[in-house]
Structures are given as structure tokens and as C-alpha cells.
């Protein structure tokens, strides 16, 4: 089992969700995040005073998947989130040792 984590542009969330549903994903966790990569931040101006804002708003999403589905899930996220401009984000895959569905106590692949 793997945990696929992605940081994407907030306005691409719906497209990513649709792409994940299309490959059979039935659960997804989303949270608001802030960060910077090569994109760096942006400038805000209040009464003529300029401020460099280092961290820009991003959306972080997490999906637990079977080993067999990792590649198509990553592909779905990349396809859904891409705009071809700087700041599109990243996807990474980390091993998940155990997964438990709290309601039933099911474990492993059955809990996904």
C-alpha cells in the first residue's frame, strides 16, 4: 500500500478529483497549505507599501492506494493538475505500513 501525496494549485482541485474518480478512487483527503518552490511568492501593495509574500496558497491532497494502482493515480493527478506554468506543484509516493477503516476495523487493502 502507498500514500500518494500531492501539492497542487487550489483551482485545479476539481479537475484532479474528477480524474481520480475516473480511475476508481473513492476517497480523498484535502487540506489548505501554503508554500513555495521555484515559483517563489508574490507581491502585495497596501497604501503604496509593497510586501513580498513568500508563501502562496496551495492545496495538499492525500490518497491511500493499492500498489497496483499507484501509477494510474499519479498519472491522474499530474494530468488533472497540470497548467504547464510554474507553480503546478509536486506529487510524491510514500509507503503506507498499515491502513485501518475505523468503522469496521478492516485492515490493509480491504480498508482502502
Amino acid at each position, binding site marked *: 500500500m502507498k500514500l500518494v501525496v500531492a501539492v497542487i494549485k487550489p483551482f485545479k482541485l476539481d479537475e484532479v478529483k474528477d480524474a481520480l474518480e475516473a480511475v476508481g478512487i473513492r476517497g480523498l483527503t484535502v487540506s489548505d497549505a501554503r508554500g513555495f518552490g521555484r515559483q517563489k511568492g508574490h507581491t502585495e*501593495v*497596501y*497604501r*503604496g*507599501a*509593497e*510586501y513580498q*509574500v513568500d508563501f502562496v496558497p496551495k492545496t495538499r491532497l492525500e490518497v491511500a492506494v493499492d500498489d497496483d494502482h499507484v501509477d494510474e493515480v499519479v498519472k491522474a493527478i499530474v494530468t488533472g493538475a497540470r497548467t504547464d506554468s510554474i507553480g503546478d506543484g509536486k506529487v510524491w509516493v510514500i509507503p503506507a505500513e498499515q491502513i485501518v477503516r475505523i468503522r469496521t476495523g478492516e485492515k490493509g487493502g480491504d480498508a482502502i
Partner: protein
Amino acid sequence: MDTGDTAWVLVSSALVLFMTPGLALFYGGMVRAKNVLGTLMHSVFAMGLITILWVLVGYTLAFGSDTGGLIGGLDFLGFHNVGNEAHPAGLGATIPHSLFATYQMMFAIITPALITGAFAERIKFSGYVAFMSAWLLFVYAPVAHWVFHPDGWLFKLGALDFAGGTVVHINAGIAALAVVLVVGKRRGFGKEPMVPHNLTMTILGTGILWFGWFGFNAGSALGANGLAASAFLATNLGAAAGAVGWALTESRKDRKATTLGVASGAVAGLVAITPAAGFVGPLGAIAIGLSGGIVCSWAVGLKFKLGYDDSLDVVGVHLAGGIVGSLLLGVFSTVAVNELGTDGLLAGGGMALMGKQIVAVLATLAFSFVVTMGIAKAVEATIGLRVTQEDEIVGIDLSQHSEVGYSLSETSGSFAARPEAPPAPATTGARVVVTEGGGA
């Protein structure tokens, strides 16, 4: 007594009172989220504190029988002799004295509240209460007497101030500078970004201020008449031209027009037109509002160049805008609008009025700066004016008021009962677990 005049000044009093919660929102949106309630409190609590002080002593010091053109006597202490007859010196000759005194109360509330934008985000609540009380009695009341009382020395000199360019805006603006020089800069000023946390709130506050300002300026005619109508129009033109002036300036300088710029410009235009609203025609009002917007959009940058921390630009907007309006009155004033006024430069009156306006501006600047600095230092030395470094980092909402403005997530913890509170009766349904001595 005139019922129409009385009705209009009653409504105007309510309009001017409404400006103070408007100011609270205007300022509250511009601070960081951790200071929003404390900043709202600085305006809203003034409605409580100043109202009472005004009735007890403030009013009589401003509008009581004259002593040397400098201050009022004690004949109206506790609103004694303030009743249904008009003010004995003919202030608002067609409305009850009690109404004139109440209308003036609303000005006395918002003027010190304007100052609070300068020391926002770092003031102890007890120090704020002491400062505001002393400032009302020792600065606001005398200056109001000089300018608005028929025996006041600036009134007799012939300086014009229709609704408070000197008394309200220059007075509050220079006091703001004096008090921030005593209080000092916020931690991280000029290094860390201190960006407004909710400009939607600021825009709503701007709308309420603009709306209430009709009572402030058109109400200052103290009657339901042509002068009130003329001042009403001039007020709207001042605000409009100020908003346009600021937006034009920043779209040239910073490439973009901002909502905060338009809001600030509207207020700057309103400030500038305040002393002139009942003395200038529509074109004069546009010129004054536009000048207010342009000059103030430049003046808000002074704090970074000169190194004082005027958090929400009270100096840049109220001091600069008040000076612009008071001096341009010497250019645009015309007796065609108000026969009790004086012709300024463009109406063929020469520089005489301008000279008097300069005297009024300088006198207000000097008196208010010196006395405010004395009050601020006295409060700082006794009660303390500034929060501790730790309290400033936590934010004044939590450190001064034990509240937070935005509880956006479920909080964890437990109900902390005060030790003397009786135990909650056991009832079915709702259960409150009372931890002895306070849990959290």
C-alpha cells in the same frame, strides 16, 4: 424652536454616532487578525466612555460660558441648565440646547477614536482608557471651544471651520503623531509584513463613514435648510473626488488601483471637505476632495521615510487631509454659498482668510501636539500605555480582552470554572463538568 431643524439635527446626531462603529470596521479590517477585537474595541468603547465624560464635564469645558476665549466655564457641568431652550450664546438658535449638546457629543466620541488607529496593535486597554479620557478634557474640549464657541479666540479671529477640520481632523492627526512618538513602533515595523487581514470589513466601514458623514457636515448647518443641502452635496463630492484622486495617483505610481486606496481616498476626501463643506460650491468641493485624495496618498508614505509607526495612517489621512481642507478653504470659500462665511482668494477676498486659516492650523498643531505628548508620557509613566512584548506577540485580543476574533475550528480544552462559582446543578441532558480550581 423649529421642528424641521430639530428633526434634522436629531437624525444627524444618530448619523454621526453611526460613524464610530463604521470607523471600528474601517480600522478593524486593516490590522492583523490577532488584533481585530482590540481595534474594534478602541472605537466602540469610546461610545461608552466619552458619552459619560461629555455629559459630566467635557461639554461644559467646550461650550460653557467663555473664559478668555480659551475654555468654557462650569455652568453646564453634568448637563445642568442644558434643556429645551436654545444654547444661550445662540449656538443652534432654533433647536433645543440638549440636542445641540448631544449632537456635539457624537463629534467628541469619534475624534479621540480617530487617534486610536495610530497606536493600534500595541496598546494596553487601561492605558487607552486613561489616555482617551484625559485627551477629551485637556485637548478636545479647549480646541472645540476656540473654534466653535462664538467667544472662542479662533472663532472671533474669523478663521473658518464648518464641521471640524481643525477641531476634529488636524487635532486628532497631530495627536496621533505625538502619541506614537511616545509609544514607539510595533515589533517588526518596517521589517515584517503587517498586512490588513480583512479589507472587506474596511470597505463596509468606509461606506458607513461616508453615509454618517452627511450628518457630520450637513448636520453642522444646525438646520434643515439650503446650507445643509449645499453641505450635503459638497460632502458627497469631496468623498467622490478623494476616491478618484487616490486611485489615479496609485494607478500611475503602483500600476494598479486598489480597494484600500479607493477607501482611503474617499475618507481623505471627506476629511478635506469637512472644514469647507458649508463654505464652498460644488466645483470647489471637487477641487478640495481631489487634492485630499492626492496629497494623502503621498502622505501615508512619510512614516516609512521618517521612521514613526502610525499603524493605520491617522497622520497621513486625517492630519494631511485636515490641513489640505483648512488651507484650501482660503482659496475656495465664497459668501455666495454661506453669507456667514468669508470670500477666499478665488471669490476676490484676497489672502486675508488664508492668513487666518494658517493661524488656526498652526495653533491647533502646536497646542494638540504639546498637550497630547504630555498626556501620553504621564499615562506611560503611571498606568503604562504599551503592552508587554509577549502580549504584543500574542495579540491584543487575547492579551487585553481574553477573546479571539475568529474561532474557525473546534477548540479543545475544558470549561474553566471560577473557584467561587457554585457547582453546576446536575440535570439530565446537558452536563457541564466543572473542574475544581479551573481546568484549562
